[in-house]
């Protein structure tokens, strides 16, 4: 667990019970999936692993994951009505117990489909005290904590692409806090995650989208 630094790590967060890892963390994972999808979700299958699989109903983890997918905050008292809200938002969902292998005991995998038919697979874990980490997006291994605004690209694995993106950021005075690069095969598709100290204006995002070899660029907010 991250070291406690602030009084508000001790008294706080303000949240809906019963469990910071099984409820608040689950809301944040759902919100992250919504951000990564980038549009309103229409359908999702959710796979629950470990402690999530054993106790998700009693902790309201199922309600919390759906609440996050609908964009609710961790302290929204409507979390307990999220199944009804999902119906109103025409979101179909299913929950399935799963063994996701040698992963954190509180791990979930989303198969998501958005309103335009865009599909997303995301896996992530609730690591305690409401903290989360997204570990996989569409087959790419990642490490995404939701504590910073983050740009996520998929692009051709060609020399110079990373430099182009960082140049755009530096020109706009945006500081990179953390950055990771991953690829599936050399020369084929790669992904980068850039966590920034400042927020990213839409025009900066558009500028990055226009760069050569980019196939998708998403901005994920803090969750």
């Amino acid at each position, binding site marked *: 667990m991250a070291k406690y630094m602030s009084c508000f790590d001790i008294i*706080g967060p303000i949240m809906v019970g019963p469990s910071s890892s099984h*409820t*608040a963390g689950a809301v944040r994972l759902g919100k992250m999936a919504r951000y990564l999808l980038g549009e309103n979700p229409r359908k999702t299958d959710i796979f629950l692993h470990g402690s999530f699989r054993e106790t998700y109903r009693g902790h309201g983890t199922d309600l919390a994951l759906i609440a996050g997918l609908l964009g609710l905050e961790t302290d929204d008292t409507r979390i*307990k009505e999220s199944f009804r809200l999902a119906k109103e938002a025409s979101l179909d969902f299913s929950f399935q117990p799963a063994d996701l292998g040698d992963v954190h005991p509180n791990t979930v995998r989303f198969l998501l489909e958005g309103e335009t038919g865009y599909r997303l697979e995301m896996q992530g874990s609730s690591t305690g005290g409401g903290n989360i980490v997204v570990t996989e997006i569409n087959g790419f291994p990642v490490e995404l904590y939701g504590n910073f605004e983050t740009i996520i690209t998929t692009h051709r694995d060609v020399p110079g692409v990373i430099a182009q993106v960082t140049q755009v950021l530096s020109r706009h005075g945006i500081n990179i806090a953390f950055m990771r690069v991953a690829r599936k095969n050399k020369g084929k598709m790669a992904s980068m995650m850039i966590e920034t100290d400042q927020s990213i204006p839409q025009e900066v995002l558009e500028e990055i989208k226009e760069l050569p070899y980019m196939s998708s660029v998403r901005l994920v907010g803090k969750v």
Partner: protein
Amino acid sequence: MEWSSLAEMAACAEEQGISLGRLVFLGEVQDTEGQERSVYERMSKSWQVMKEAVQEGLNNPSKSRGGMIGGEGHKLAAYLKKGRSLSGDVLDAVSRALAVAELNAAMGKIVAAPTAGSCGIIPGVLTMLQEKLNLSDEAVIYALFAASGIGLIIAQRASLSGAQGGCQAECGSAAAMAAAAVVELAGGTPFQVLDAVAISMKNNLGLVCDPVAGLVEVPCAKRNALGAANALVAADMALAGIVSVIPADEVIGAMGEIGRTMPEALRETAQGGLARTPTGLKLAKKFLSLE
């Protein structure tokens, strides 16, 4: 935070002639490069949510997610109104702590303090005290800073999580933090605050985390209730001038060490203690069969 021990914090507060709460508050402002106003407002928001949680939990009790608890805080408050309780104001705080813990189990809005599983103790004790002593919100908010300063040291030197340290780390820490807040509110010295922390925590050493069916219900809610009582009695003892023979920092160290040597079955895994009693197993089976 610049302090690594409670003794250091208390000495620093005495030297500057300010309360522990004020010291921790100023430290937070400095650490976060924040403005005094925004740091204060943030704790003030938590205090508002704590007060609302007490009212909601007492007035609109609902069944927990796992169905094992709900309405006991309300029941205790009604019993208290008959005027025949044997433990007086302590029981008032207890009923409130219970109500908040139940609200948590029913997916209501609470403040983790320090965790969701131990969220009832601090609001239970402090809302009772505010009404009884007619205290200002400002006084209580500084007491919350004092409590969180204690929690920060516990987090550094031991743990606040049941999975790491057993329930002594969750309800035990919450009780110690509440005891600290009470002494501060009652005008005790920073070193009396430390004695209250030590006395309270010593009585929770070894407290295991054994949730039935793995849910934050049994025994969690009633441990919140009794944690509130523990905090008030420990605070009164310290205010009476009783000194803890073992200093608070060493008690916290012992808590951390006990947590590390505690078997995993007794650290939030639902594999031991009350979770493994015949009734605990029966309830777990009933709950899991609903899946």
